[in-house]
Protein backbone atom coordinates (compact mmCIF):
# COMPACT_ATOMS: atom_id res chain seq x y z
CA UNK A 1 0.00 0.00 0.00
CA UNK A 2 2.77 2.43 0.94
CA UNK A 3 4.62 1.51 -2.26
CA UNK A 4 1.55 2.49 -4.30
CA UNK A 5 1.25 5.75 -2.39
CA UNK A 6 4.95 6.50 -2.92
CA UNK A 7 4.51 5.80 -6.61
CA UNK A 8 1.45 8.05 -6.74
CA UNK A 9 3.39 10.79 -4.96
CA UNK A 10 6.25 10.40 -7.43
CA UNK A 11 3.89 10.63 -10.39
CA UNK A 12 2.03 13.59 -8.91
CA UNK A 13 5.21 15.51 -8.11
CA UNK A 14 6.64 14.88 -11.51
CA UNK A 15 3.27 15.83 -13.03
CA UNK A 16 3.31 19.28 -11.43
CA UNK A 17 6.04 20.90 -13.47
CA UNK A 18 5.86 18.74 -16.58
CA UNK A 19 6.99 20.10 -19.86
CA UNK A 20 4.33 19.42 -22.45
CA UNK A 21 4.83 16.73 -25.04
CA UNK A 22 2.93 16.59 -28.28
CA UNK A 23 -0.36 15.93 -26.47
CA UNK A 24 -0.43 17.07 -22.86
CA UNK A 25 2.00 16.50 -20.02
CA UNK A 26 4.82 13.99 -20.40
CA UNK A 27 4.47 10.72 -18.53
CA UNK A 28 7.85 9.47 -17.39
CA UNK A 29 6.51 6.11 -16.28
CA UNK A 30 4.54 3.72 -18.48
CA UNK A 31 3.44 0.25 -17.40
CA UNK A 32 6.19 -0.05 -14.84
CA UNK A 33 8.85 1.16 -17.28
CA UNK A 34 10.54 4.18 -15.75
CA UNK A 35 12.58 6.81 -17.52
CA UNK A 36 15.94 7.74 -16.01
CA UNK A 37 14.27 11.10 -15.32
CA UNK A 38 12.41 9.56 -12.39
CA UNK A 39 15.70 8.62 -10.72
CA UNK A 40 17.12 12.13 -10.90
CA UNK A 41 17.07 14.58 -7.99
CA UNK A 42 14.72 17.51 -8.61
CA UNK A 43 17.49 19.98 -9.44
CA UNK A 44 18.72 17.79 -12.30
CA UNK A 45 15.16 17.27 -13.52
CA UNK A 46 14.88 21.07 -13.57
CA UNK A 47 18.16 21.31 -15.48
CA UNK A 48 16.90 18.90 -18.13
CA UNK A 49 13.59 20.76 -18.40
CA UNK A 50 15.15 24.20 -18.60
CA UNK A 51 14.85 25.45 -22.18
CA UNK A 52 18.08 27.39 -21.86
CA UNK A 53 20.29 25.75 -19.26
CA UNK A 54 20.16 22.14 -20.47
CA UNK A 55 23.78 21.69 -21.64
CA UNK A 56 22.64 19.25 -24.34
CA UNK A 57 21.05 22.18 -26.13
CA UNK A 58 24.53 23.37 -27.09
CA UNK A 59 24.82 20.23 -29.23
CA UNK A 60 21.29 20.70 -30.57
CA UNK A 61 22.30 24.19 -31.66
CA UNK A 62 25.40 22.81 -33.36
CA UNK A 63 23.21 20.23 -35.10
CA UNK A 64 20.89 22.96 -36.30
CA UNK A 65 23.81 24.66 -38.04
CA UNK A 66 25.09 21.38 -39.51
CA UNK A 67 21.63 20.65 -40.91
CA UNK A 68 21.94 23.50 -43.40
CA UNK A 69 25.63 23.14 -44.14
CA UNK A 70 26.79 21.89 -47.50
CA UNK A 71 29.15 18.97 -47.29
CA UNK A 72 30.69 16.67 -49.85
CA UNK A 73 31.66 17.17 -53.49
CA UNK A 74 28.09 17.27 -54.84
CA UNK A 75 27.22 20.26 -52.69
CA UNK A 76 24.30 18.82 -50.72
CA UNK A 77 23.03 19.53 -47.24
CA UNK A 78 20.50 17.74 -45.04
CA UNK A 79 18.17 20.69 -45.57
CA UNK A 80 18.49 20.39 -49.34
CA UNK A 81 16.72 17.02 -49.40
CA UNK A 82 14.75 16.97 -46.15
CA UNK A 83 13.69 20.60 -45.96
CA UNK A 84 12.83 22.04 -42.59
CA UNK A 85 13.85 19.70 -39.79
CA UNK A 86 10.80 20.63 -37.67
CA UNK A 87 8.56 18.87 -40.12
CA UNK A 88 10.84 16.28 -41.69
CA UNK A 89 12.34 14.99 -38.44
CA UNK A 90 9.24 15.08 -36.27
CA UNK A 91 8.78 11.66 -34.67
CA UNK A 92 11.81 10.19 -36.44
CA UNK A 93 14.05 9.41 -33.47
CA UNK A 94 11.15 7.73 -31.67
CA UNK A 95 11.11 4.98 -34.29
CA UNK A 96 14.79 4.06 -34.24
CA UNK A 97 16.45 1.57 -34.55
CA UNK A 98 14.31 0.80 -37.58
CA UNK A 99 14.20 -1.86 -40.22
CA UNK A 100 16.14 -1.20 -43.38
CA UNK A 101 13.96 -2.92 -45.97
CA UNK A 102 16.79 -3.28 -48.47
CA UNK A 103 19.06 -5.31 -46.19
CA UNK A 104 16.51 -6.72 -43.74
CA UNK A 105 18.68 -5.48 -40.89
CA UNK A 106 18.11 -2.91 -38.16
CA UNK A 107 19.76 0.45 -38.57
CA UNK A 108 20.44 2.99 -35.83
CA UNK A 109 19.97 6.73 -36.20
CA UNK A 110 23.73 7.27 -36.33
CA UNK A 111 24.06 4.66 -39.07
CA UNK A 112 21.24 6.25 -41.05
CA UNK A 113 22.82 9.69 -40.82
CA UNK A 114 26.13 8.34 -42.07
CA UNK A 115 24.35 6.42 -44.82
CA UNK A 116 22.74 9.64 -46.04
CA UNK A 117 26.15 11.28 -45.95
CA UNK A 118 27.78 8.47 -47.90
CA UNK A 119 25.07 7.77 -50.47
CA UNK A 120 23.39 11.14 -50.99
CA UNK A 121 26.08 13.63 -50.09
CA UNK A 122 29.16 11.59 -51.05
CA UNK A 123 30.61 12.97 -47.85
CA UNK A 124 32.83 11.07 -45.40
CA UNK A 125 31.00 9.53 -42.45
CA UNK A 126 31.16 11.18 -39.07
CA UNK A 127 32.97 8.95 -36.63
CA UNK A 128 31.23 7.46 -33.59
CA UNK A 129 31.05 9.89 -30.69
CA UNK A 130 32.31 12.73 -32.86
CA UNK A 131 30.95 16.16 -31.99
CA UNK A 132 29.12 16.32 -35.33
CA UNK A 133 27.37 12.98 -34.98
CA UNK A 134 26.34 13.76 -31.42
CA UNK A 135 25.12 17.18 -32.50
CA UNK A 136 23.07 15.78 -35.38
CA UNK A 137 21.49 12.97 -33.34
CA UNK A 138 20.71 15.44 -30.54
CA UNK A 139 19.19 17.87 -33.04
CA UNK A 140 17.09 15.22 -34.79
CA UNK A 141 16.14 13.70 -31.44
CA UNK A 142 14.79 17.00 -30.17
CA UNK A 143 11.97 16.85 -32.74
CA UNK A 144 10.65 13.72 -31.06
CA UNK A 145 10.70 15.24 -27.58
CA UNK A 146 7.78 13.95 -25.54
CA UNK A 147 6.71 11.42 -28.16
CA UNK A 148 6.58 7.76 -27.14
CA UNK A 149 9.37 5.43 -28.24
CA UNK A 150 7.95 3.03 -30.85
CA UNK A 151 10.58 0.87 -32.49
CA UNK A 152 9.53 -1.50 -35.24
CA UNK A 153 9.88 -5.12 -34.28
CA UNK A 154 8.56 -8.28 -35.87
CA UNK A 155 9.30 -9.63 -39.31
CA UNK A 156 13.03 -9.67 -40.10
CA UNK A 157 13.75 -7.86 -36.84
CA UNK A 158 12.46 -10.69 -34.66
CA UNK A 159 15.76 -12.54 -34.59
CA UNK A 160 17.63 -9.29 -33.89
CA UNK A 161 15.34 -8.50 -30.98
CA UNK A 162 15.88 -12.01 -29.60
CA UNK A 163 19.64 -11.64 -29.93
CA UNK A 164 19.44 -8.32 -28.12
CA UNK A 165 17.38 -9.90 -25.37
CA UNK A 166 19.97 -12.69 -24.97
CA UNK A 167 22.81 -10.18 -24.83
CA UNK A 168 20.95 -8.13 -22.24
CA UNK A 169 20.53 -11.17 -20.00
CA UNK A 170 23.98 -12.70 -20.51
CA UNK A 171 26.46 -12.47 -17.64
CA UNK A 172 29.74 -11.05 -18.79
CA UNK A 173 33.07 -9.70 -17.71
CA UNK A 174 35.27 -10.12 -14.71
CA UNK A 175 32.41 -9.07 -12.47
CA UNK A 176 30.17 -11.64 -14.17
CA UNK A 177 27.13 -9.38 -14.32
CA UNK A 178 24.44 -8.99 -16.95
CA UNK A 179 22.57 -5.78 -17.75
CA UNK A 180 19.49 -7.40 -16.21
CA UNK A 181 21.21 -8.08 -12.90
CA UNK A 182 21.37 -4.37 -12.11
CA UNK A 183 18.80 -2.75 -14.34
CA UNK A 184 16.02 -5.23 -13.67
CA UNK A 185 17.11 -6.81 -10.41
CA UNK A 186 18.55 -3.93 -8.39
CA UNK A 187 16.61 -0.90 -9.56
CA UNK A 188 16.29 1.77 -6.90
CA UNK A 189 19.18 0.38 -4.89
CA UNK A 190 22.45 2.27 -4.54
CA UNK A 191 25.70 1.66 -6.36
CA UNK A 192 28.05 3.57 -4.07
CA UNK A 193 26.50 7.05 -4.08
CA UNK A 194 24.48 6.59 -7.23
CA UNK A 195 20.96 5.31 -7.66
CA UNK A 196 20.53 2.35 -10.04
CA UNK A 197 17.98 3.16 -12.73
CA UNK A 198 16.28 0.87 -15.21
CA UNK A 199 18.91 1.87 -17.75
CA UNK A 200 16.35 3.03 -20.30
CA UNK A 201 17.59 4.55 -23.54
CA UNK A 202 14.78 7.07 -24.14
CA UNK A 203 16.89 10.15 -23.46
CA UNK A 204 19.87 9.42 -25.63
CA UNK A 205 22.09 11.06 -26.69
CA UNK A 206 22.33 12.38 -23.15
CA UNK A 207 24.38 15.06 -21.47
CA UNK A 208 26.09 12.93 -18.86
CA UNK A 209 27.50 14.78 -15.86
CA UNK A 210 30.10 12.07 -15.38
CA UNK A 211 31.50 12.75 -18.86
CA UNK A 212 30.71 16.47 -18.87
CA UNK A 213 29.70 16.02 -22.47
CA UNK A 214 27.09 14.37 -24.67
CA UNK A 215 27.15 10.62 -25.07
CA UNK A 216 25.33 8.24 -27.38
CA UNK A 217 23.61 5.04 -26.33
CA UNK A 218 26.63 3.21 -27.80
CA UNK A 219 28.94 4.98 -25.42
CA UNK A 220 26.63 4.21 -22.52
CA UNK A 221 26.59 0.50 -23.30
CA UNK A 222 30.36 0.46 -23.73
CA UNK A 223 30.77 2.24 -20.40
CA UNK A 224 28.58 -0.30 -18.65
CA UNK A 225 30.59 -3.13 -20.16
CA UNK A 226 33.84 -1.51 -19.06
CA UNK A 227 32.32 -1.19 -15.62
CA UNK A 228 31.88 -4.96 -15.31
CA UNK A 229 35.28 -5.48 -16.94
CA UNK A 230 33.84 -6.98 -20.07
CA UNK A 231 35.06 -6.46 -23.63
CA UNK A 232 32.70 -3.85 -25.12
CA UNK A 233 31.11 -4.47 -28.51
CA UNK A 234 32.40 -2.01 -31.11
CA UNK A 235 29.77 0.61 -31.98
CA UNK A 236 27.87 -0.40 -35.10
CA UNK A 237 28.67 -4.07 -34.62
CA UNK A 238 25.83 -6.59 -34.90
CA UNK A 239 25.77 -7.18 -31.15
CA UNK A 240 25.70 -3.46 -30.41
CA UNK A 241 22.84 -2.87 -32.83
CA UNK A 242 20.87 -5.88 -31.57
CA UNK A 243 21.26 -4.59 -28.01
CA UNK A 244 20.19 -1.12 -29.03
CA UNK A 245 17.08 -2.55 -30.71
CA UNK A 246 16.24 -4.54 -27.60
CA UNK A 247 16.75 -1.44 -25.42
CA UNK A 248 14.42 0.56 -27.66
CA UNK A 249 11.78 -2.15 -27.33
CA UNK A 250 12.39 -2.22 -23.59
CA UNK A 251 11.79 1.56 -23.50
CA UNK A 252 8.60 1.36 -25.60
CA UNK A 253 6.04 3.95 -24.64
CA UNK A 254 8.51 6.04 -22.67
CA UNK A 255 8.86 9.62 -23.89
CA UNK A 256 11.85 10.66 -25.96
CA UNK A 257 13.77 13.11 -23.75
CA UNK A 258 16.66 13.89 -26.06
CA UNK A 259 18.76 15.72 -24.98
CA UNK A 260 18.33 14.28 -21.48
CA UNK A 261 20.57 15.11 -18.52
CA UNK A 262 21.85 12.13 -16.60
CA UNK A 263 24.46 11.48 -13.94
Amino acid sequence: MSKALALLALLTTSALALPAGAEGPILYEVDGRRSGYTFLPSDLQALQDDPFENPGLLWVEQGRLLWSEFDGPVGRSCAGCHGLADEAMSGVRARYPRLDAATGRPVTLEQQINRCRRVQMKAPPWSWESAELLAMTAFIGKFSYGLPIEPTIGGPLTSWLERGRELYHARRGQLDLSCADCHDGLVGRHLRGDLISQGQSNGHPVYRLLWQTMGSISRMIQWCMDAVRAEPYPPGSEEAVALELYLAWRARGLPVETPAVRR
Partner: protein
Amino acid sequence: MPTVRLQAPEKARPGEIVEVKALVQHPMESGFRRDARGQPIPRKILNKVTVTFEDELVLEGDWFIGVAASPFLAFDLRVERAGTLRITWRDDDGTLITAQHRIELA
Protein backbone atom coordinates in the same frame (compact mmCIF):
# COMPACT_ATOMS: atom_id res chain seq x y z
CA MET B 1 33.88 28.78 -33.14
CA PRO B 2 32.41 26.91 -30.17
CA THR B 3 28.65 27.14 -29.77
CA VAL B 4 27.46 29.91 -27.49
CA ARG B 5 23.92 30.39 -26.23
CA LEU B 6 23.01 33.77 -24.80
CA GLN B 7 19.69 34.70 -23.28
CA ALA B 8 18.68 38.24 -22.36
CA PRO B 9 15.54 40.26 -23.00
CA GLU B 10 15.26 42.19 -26.26
CA LYS B 11 13.81 45.21 -24.47
CA ALA B 12 14.01 46.68 -20.99
CA ARG B 13 12.64 49.77 -19.27
CA PRO B 14 15.29 52.29 -18.16
CA GLY B 15 16.51 51.26 -14.73
CA GLU B 16 15.09 47.74 -15.01
CA ILE B 17 17.24 44.89 -13.74
CA VAL B 18 17.30 41.97 -16.15
CA GLU B 19 18.81 38.51 -15.93
CA VAL B 20 21.37 37.46 -18.52
CA LYS B 21 22.34 33.83 -19.01
CA ALA B 22 25.14 32.44 -21.14
CA LEU B 23 26.29 28.94 -21.95
CA VAL B 24 29.47 28.30 -23.91
CA GLN B 25 30.49 24.89 -25.20
CA HIS B 26 34.02 24.11 -24.00
CA PRO B 27 35.70 21.01 -22.55
CA MET B 28 37.35 22.97 -19.68
CA GLU B 29 40.03 20.33 -19.40
CA SER B 30 41.66 20.62 -15.97
CA GLY B 31 44.98 19.05 -16.91
CA PHE B 32 44.59 16.40 -14.23
CA ARG B 33 42.77 13.79 -16.31
CA ARG B 34 44.42 10.97 -18.21
CA ASP B 35 43.33 9.38 -21.45
CA ALA B 36 42.71 5.69 -22.11
CA ARG B 37 46.45 5.11 -22.56
CA GLY B 38 47.28 6.77 -19.28
CA GLN B 39 48.70 9.90 -20.88
CA PRO B 40 47.80 13.21 -19.22
CA ILE B 41 45.26 15.27 -21.17
CA PRO B 42 46.67 18.80 -21.34
CA ARG B 43 44.93 21.61 -19.52
CA LYS B 44 42.69 23.73 -21.73
CA ILE B 45 40.24 26.05 -20.05
CA LEU B 46 38.59 29.40 -20.50
CA ASN B 47 40.53 31.48 -18.00
CA LYS B 48 38.82 34.85 -18.30
CA VAL B 49 35.35 36.19 -18.97
CA THR B 50 34.62 39.83 -19.69
CA VAL B 51 31.17 41.36 -20.06
CA THR B 52 30.67 44.85 -21.43
CA PHE B 53 27.61 46.91 -22.23
CA GLU B 54 28.54 49.40 -24.93
CA ASP B 55 31.77 50.92 -23.55
CA GLU B 56 31.15 50.06 -19.90
CA LEU B 57 32.65 47.07 -18.12
CA VAL B 58 29.87 45.08 -16.47
CA LEU B 59 31.79 42.18 -15.00
CA GLU B 60 35.10 40.45 -15.30
CA GLY B 61 36.01 37.03 -14.00
CA ASP B 62 39.10 34.90 -13.70
CA TRP B 63 38.25 31.25 -14.14
CA PHE B 64 40.25 28.28 -12.99
CA ILE B 65 40.18 24.51 -13.32
CA GLY B 66 37.33 24.05 -10.87
CA VAL B 67 34.86 25.39 -13.40
CA ALA B 68 32.93 22.60 -15.11
CA ALA B 69 32.80 21.94 -18.84
CA SER B 70 30.45 24.05 -20.93
CA PRO B 71 30.34 26.71 -18.24
CA PHE B 72 27.10 28.45 -17.36
CA LEU B 73 27.20 32.15 -16.45
CA ALA B 74 24.26 34.14 -15.15
CA PHE B 75 24.19 37.69 -13.86
CA ASP B 76 21.83 40.61 -13.27
CA LEU B 77 22.23 43.74 -15.34
CA ARG B 78 20.68 47.15 -14.74
CA VAL B 79 19.76 48.59 -18.12
CA GLU B 80 19.94 52.39 -18.29
CA ARG B 81 20.14 52.85 -22.04
CA ALA B 82 19.79 50.88 -25.25
CA GLY B 83 22.96 49.15 -26.32
CA THR B 84 24.88 46.03 -27.16
CA LEU B 85 25.89 43.52 -24.51
CA ARG B 86 29.12 41.71 -25.34
CA ILE B 87 30.58 38.68 -23.61
CA THR B 88 34.12 37.54 -24.33
CA TRP B 89 35.78 34.42 -23.02
CA ARG B 90 39.52 33.88 -23.31
CA ASP B 91 40.97 30.42 -23.82
CA ASP B 92 44.34 29.37 -22.34
CA ASP B 93 45.75 29.46 -25.88
CA GLY B 94 44.73 33.10 -26.31
CA THR B 95 41.72 32.49 -28.56
CA LEU B 96 38.73 34.68 -27.83
CA ILE B 97 35.12 33.52 -28.01
CA THR B 98 32.56 36.28 -28.24
CA ALA B 99 28.81 36.70 -28.29
CA GLN B 100 26.66 39.76 -28.36
CA HIS B 101 23.07 40.77 -27.83
CA ARG B 102 21.25 44.00 -28.47
CA ILE B 103 18.94 45.39 -25.79
CA GLU B 104 16.53 48.18 -26.76
CA LEU B 105 14.61 50.42 -24.42
CA ALA B 106 10.97 49.45 -23.91
